[in-house]
């Protein structure tokens, strides 16, 4: 089984971003970047499938700037076999990313595509579902467990009220939720080996993909700040405030 994993380069999750003074976007100058945490889980799941003998090859792909090569190298160090960067500098919307990934799916013919459920920058939660629509594949979003069962893929999903399990025909799309696995760290020897693994760069033009979007960001603002309140000294004072001042109990 061939597995394709899509990853995104995003702001490190520990960084508290600030909005630019001209309200055009958030300030990403000199900010630490990393692989999106849900994408790390996607890479880990593919590597585990390979370790179990279920996957034969892992191809990792990213749509983004030249610098996204760093995150692709990380994925290679974690166990992916080769990497593809679809190089695009501008702000990308989900549909364009899904179309670019569709072109790679057409070329690579994977049996399974694993993506993170959402990127922690744009918080869209769209790309996997869109890729499923464009390919016509079944989708298992917000996966907490993935199991091959004969020619089907059983995916347990995190849903609002608990867990749901669906059986998907292959090829299928899976998007990862937090509890699917705990990603490993790349070891130094593997980081060195990853430098020699193949990393191919292609352009959206060469794939015949348009990056146009129907969405346009007009401005980006800081959210209304919530000011700190007061410290109470005792449980009794807390109850008194909640009853008489806030009137919420």
């Amino acid at each position, binding site marked *: 089984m061939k597995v394709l994993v899509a990853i995104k380069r995003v702001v490190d999750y520990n960084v508290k971003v600030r909005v630019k003074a001209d309200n055009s976007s958030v300030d990403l100058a000199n900010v630490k970047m990393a692989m999106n945490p849900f994408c790390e889980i996607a890479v880990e799941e593919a590597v585990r499938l390979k370790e179990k003998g279920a996957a034969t090859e892992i191809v990792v792909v990213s749509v983004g700037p030249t610098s996204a090569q760093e995150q692709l190298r990380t994925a290679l160090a974690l166990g992916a076999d080769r990497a593809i960067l679809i190089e695009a500098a501008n702000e990308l919307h989900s549909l364009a990313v899904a179309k670019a990934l569709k072109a790679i799916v057409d070329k690579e013919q994977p049996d399974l595509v694993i993506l993170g459920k959402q990127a922690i920058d744009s918080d869209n939660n*769209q790309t996997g579902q869109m890729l499923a629509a464009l390919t016509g594949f079944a989708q298992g979003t917000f996966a907490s467990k993935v199991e091959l069962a004969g020619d089907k893929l059983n995916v347990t999903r995190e849903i609002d009220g608990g*867990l749901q399990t669906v059986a998907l025909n292959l090829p299928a799309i899976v998007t990862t939720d*937090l509890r699917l696995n705990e990603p490993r760290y790349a070891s130094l020897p593997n980081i060195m080996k990853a430098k020699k693994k193949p990393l191919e760069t292609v352009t959206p033009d060469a794939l015949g993909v348009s990056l146009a979007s129907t969405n346009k960001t007009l401005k980006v603002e800081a959210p209304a700040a919530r000011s700190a309140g007061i410290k109470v000294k005792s449980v009794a004072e807390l109850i008194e405030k909640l009853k008489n001042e806030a009137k919420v109990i």
Partner: protein
Amino acid sequence: MAILVVAEHDNHSLAPATLNTLAAAKQIGGEIVVLVAGFNAADVASAAAQIAGVSKVLLADDEAYAHQLPENVAPMLANLGRDFSHVLAPATSNGKSILPRVAALLDVDQISEIIAVDSADTFKRPIYAGNAIATVQSSASVKVITVRTTGFDAVAAEGGSAAVEAIGAAHNAEISAFVGEELAKSDRPELTAAKIVVSGGRGMGNGDNFKHLYSLADKLGAAVGASRAAVDAGFVPNDMQVGQTGKIVAPQLYIAVGISGAIQHLAGMKDSKVIVAINKDEEAPIFHVADYGLVADLFEAVPELSDQL
């Protein structure tokens, strides 16, 4: 052109999230049609027809839609959606799974989790875990939108008398099947709809200690939530997670117990009306957003609070 709102339901009753989504549709303006896609879901359609401001209810009733499988619902919804100016669904796990698939079939970009309507084509949505708010304009012929329910006050569930029209267009892609589900059974209110939420974090120490929060919640008629740290540590199941990657809540009262207040957690609860923080670390960032902070050992303060209520 009318607005199509996708109802959230379990084939028996209409979920409140639908009413918040309808509030967003009302702000956009125009005729509002509700779609109920399900199986043996006539009761849901009747409930939807009672909602004030709904002009028509479409009922797509077929076994293929029983479990909201996106492979089956999305093609039907995309086909239907072409004749509408907007397609809206609440940002629930169903809405989040189905709507992007619909958007891609319509060849448009989706606008996810809007919290405000500026005009019929311009919306506000949080990005970077709510650390920034983006204003997004859509030029799509059909605007496909998920609605963050905490951003909109629910419309009245009664006062309308719309006609229910059955639509026959059943679509079964036959590439996915429902196997089973394990739903948390609780007598407490649902997390995203509760007026009071009591949440625990890593400071709870273990899952057993959540009993202190359950007894407090039962005194208050509250739902119980948790931070990602508490979920990651295995104290409680993931469906209790409040935060950027979990549930977004905005109750009247949010009581954060043993939660330090990472930005990812704040993203899920900072729109609560009143926030109480109980934490023994007086430097914890949660105190920066709390209306009332109590620096105390939670294992003393929480039982005391339960006793005094």
